[in-house]
């Protein structure tokens, strides 16, 4: 069943600030934060009140729509603040951490000998369930479903991405435990895509291994799903990120929710980009200033530069990401930026832009949009970086006009916003592709799902 996946259409963005392959431990953060907005469409229902003590792995809140899905604390400490925004939506939960973690004990679970019901119950109870995402709709998986297949991308091709072969090294036991458990939740297969390197996934049991090659987005799980077995109407597949498998596996082996992960601090504004051991929800500043910043005016991004979300040097590690990118802000004007020859920025055209002359150069890009928002004009360029078998421009337009029939026919069930990150990157009209797709998916979920 295993097959090699070769991607032709795509674009690998080469940026300055790749993480050096050395691992440091970030000092323990004093406060931790969880932002419910990361859990798309989840309406949090608090279990704890401000000022209450919490153990690592103890439930902070659950989803109002499905009470079984619990969200737990990454550390032990005191829930000091529940910050609310407009319409009393919970924006952020802040936890004052204890000096030492006190774990809630779930007890080890042998994934080899357990049945699916036990595994599911354990994943839900221990707060590991939110790591499992589903397609269609790119939201947290519904525990009632039985997925057709489960997909894991063990290779990352995103700009300055965390090298999984490095950061997951030595975690084979945890990975094995997690994939064995997950593989019992589907009648189909658990597909894992790996690169050409020494992947810790190679040699694991209970998986179907695929070798993936080609430019970004070859490492996106959506690309791999499309090439291995695309999602059809009425089908559900699940996806899990490899760094989250480690936490799941660790929980199964030890019975503790250990939120520790190896993250890559990258970007051209970081003095010495490298890998850090830290925890979900930890203060970014605990490692940011250890590596040092080149300048003041920077954008700190939870995730990679194409799909991450904005935070600040005072912000916190996200729940899902294994990369923190720091790049210069581009909030300045540029004289005749629209017609002068450009050598130091990436372009997919050759319209007095010369990045095609230096295919191996590493660029230092800032957050400037390099132009204003316009209607779609240029055609045919998205297709060059979009390897999925569908029409990206038509899909975006269908989402914008809220044409549900067209969205369904064009393949909306197969995509997540991240699949449109490259088309967004190269968009001449500076349209917010990922937001358009997100809104389209949400509309579809509301009307059909």
């Amino acid at each position, binding site marked *: 069943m295993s097959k090699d996946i070769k991607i032709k259409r795509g674009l690998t963005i080469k940026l300055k600030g790749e993480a050096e392959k050395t691992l440091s431990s970030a000092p323990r953060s004093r406060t931790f934060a969880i932002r419910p907005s990361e859990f798309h469409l989840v309406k949090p229902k608090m279990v704890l009140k401000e000022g209450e003590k919490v153990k690592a792995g103890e439930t902070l809140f659950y989803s109002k729509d499905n009470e079984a899905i619990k969200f737990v604390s990454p550390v032990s400490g005191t829930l000091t603040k529940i910050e609310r925004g407009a319409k009393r939506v919970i924006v952020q939960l802040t936890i004052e951490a204890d000096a030492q973690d006190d774990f809630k004990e779930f007890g080890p679970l042998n994934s080899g000998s357990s049945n699916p019901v036990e595994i599911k119950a354990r994943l839900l109870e221990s707060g590991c369930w939110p790591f499992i995402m589903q397609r269609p709709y790119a939201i947290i998986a519904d525990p009632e479903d039985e997925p057709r297949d489960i997909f894991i991308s063990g290779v990352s091709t995103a700009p300055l991405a965390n090298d999984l072969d490095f950061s997951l090294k030595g975690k084979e036991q945890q990975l094995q435990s997690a994939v064995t458990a997950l593989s019992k939740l589907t009648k189909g297969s658990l597909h894992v895509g790996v690169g050409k390197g020494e992947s810790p996934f190679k040699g694991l049991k209970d998986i179907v291994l695929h070798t993936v090659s080609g430019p970004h987005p070859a490492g996106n799980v959506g690309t791999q799903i499309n090439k291995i077995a*695309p999602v*059809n*109407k*009425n*089908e559900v597949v699940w996806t899990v990120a490899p760094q989250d498998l480690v936490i799941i596996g660790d929980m199964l082996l030890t019975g503790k929710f250990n939120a520790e992960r190896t993250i890559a601090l990258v970007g051209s504004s970081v003095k010495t980009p490298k890998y850090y051991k830290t925890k979900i929800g930890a203060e970014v500043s605990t490692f940011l200033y250890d590596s040092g910043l080149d300048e003041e005016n920077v*954008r700190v991004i939870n995730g990679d*530069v*194409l799909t*991450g979300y*904005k935070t600040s040097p005072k912000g916190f590690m996200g729940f899902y990401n294994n990369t923190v990118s720091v*790049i210069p*802000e*581009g*909030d300045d*004007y*540029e*004289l005749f*930026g*629209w*017609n002068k020859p*450009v050598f130091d920025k*990436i*372009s*997919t*055209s050759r319209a*007095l832009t010369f990045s095609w002359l230096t295919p191996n150069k590493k660029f230092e*890009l*800032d*957050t*400037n*949009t*390099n*132009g*204003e928002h*316009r*209607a*779609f*004009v*240029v*055609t*045919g360029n998205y297709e060059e970086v979009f390897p999925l078998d*569908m*029409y990206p*421009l038509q899909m975006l337009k269908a989402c914008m006009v809220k044409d549900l029939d067209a969205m369904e*026919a*064009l*393949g909306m069930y197969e995509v997540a*916003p991240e699949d449109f*990150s*490259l088309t*967004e*990157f*190269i*968009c*001449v*009209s500076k349209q*917010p*592709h*990922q*937001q358009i797709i997100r809104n389209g998916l949400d509309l579809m979920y509301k009307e059909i799902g």
Partner: protein
Amino acid sequence: MGLKQNLHKLKEKYKGTKMAPAFNALHTFLYTPNETTHSGSHVRVVDDLKRTMNTVIMALVPCLLFGIFNAGYQHYAAIDNSLRLDPVANFFTMDNFLMGCITVLPLVIVSYGVGLLVEFIFAIIKKHEVEEGYLVTGMLVPLIVPVDIPLWMLAVAVIFGVVIGKEVFGGTGMNILNPALTIRAFLFFAYPTWMSGDKVWVHGAKEMAAQPDAISGETILGSLAQNSEPIYSTWDMFWGFIPGSVGETSTFLILIGALFLIFTKIGSWRIILSTVLGAIAMGLIFNGVVNAGWIGEGSKFYGLMSETWWHHLIIGGFAFGAVYMATDPVTASQTNKGKWIYGFLIGFLGIMIRVFNPAYPEGIMLAILLMNVFAPTIDHYVVQGNIKRRMKRFKVKTA
């Protein structure tokens, strides 16, 4: 530094006011804005719509310069036919250039002045930014009209073209018909005597028509339509020393422009190539029909149909239309497969209309406008192919 800060202050001052779009249009012409990304992709490529449009304009500049010289050259050569004996020596002269400037530059100024005025007014009324689409349209328009077109007609046509051809659909990116061709089609149907015949292509020909020293400026297609041999050599046609709309005559420079557009990845090579293929196909069919003896020399179509197939590529507006008009991404097919069909049909129908149009021996304008209308239909069927594949996958699964 001073200018940048002052403009920034002005921008903040105008923010939210009615004048904001007008001010921003001028501001962004000088400086790319300080806008940053918020979510999604935090970094973006350097290409924007201004750069894209600017590239097309750069590809048009050689045609404009040549058109200026040619306007003067055709005028003087019509008066003194001996100049045509050595076009190369008599072409790039100061006299030609000055005469060309006098006749062509007003067209450019009116086209941009009136067109941008309409754009600004609409931007202010509809509270959106001034979009770049007209930068290219404004350059195309003077290049595709006869040199002596009265300026007021041009102004009326530009207003019509921008308002009805573009703004009523929602502005740049939303239009169905190519705005520059909408303007030309308006002129063509509203003022046919100024757009066709043998008196409009050379400056002064119309005014001097009644005088004893009348000059003529028959285009090659015009001669062929009357079954008479054109007086120009094939090389004249290729280099462009022939009468015609201002910027369309030099196939050589258009070819350079095409290569530039394809190299910069701004123009679609699929459309350009397939348009040429379509024209060749039609040209070969006509030649074949003539060779088979189905069309006699007495037929009024004989002249155009018997013209060697590849000559169609270098006479009239074909090359200009294929490179600069058919490739407009907004009005062309948007799928890669669709572009092949769209382009081929433009070439095919363009040559067909050129030969069979009794009133006016050129068809590329009408062919492009026609295919503009059909482009969404072509795309629909191309996309259906993808949808059917997906449906089939679904049915196999559920069966």
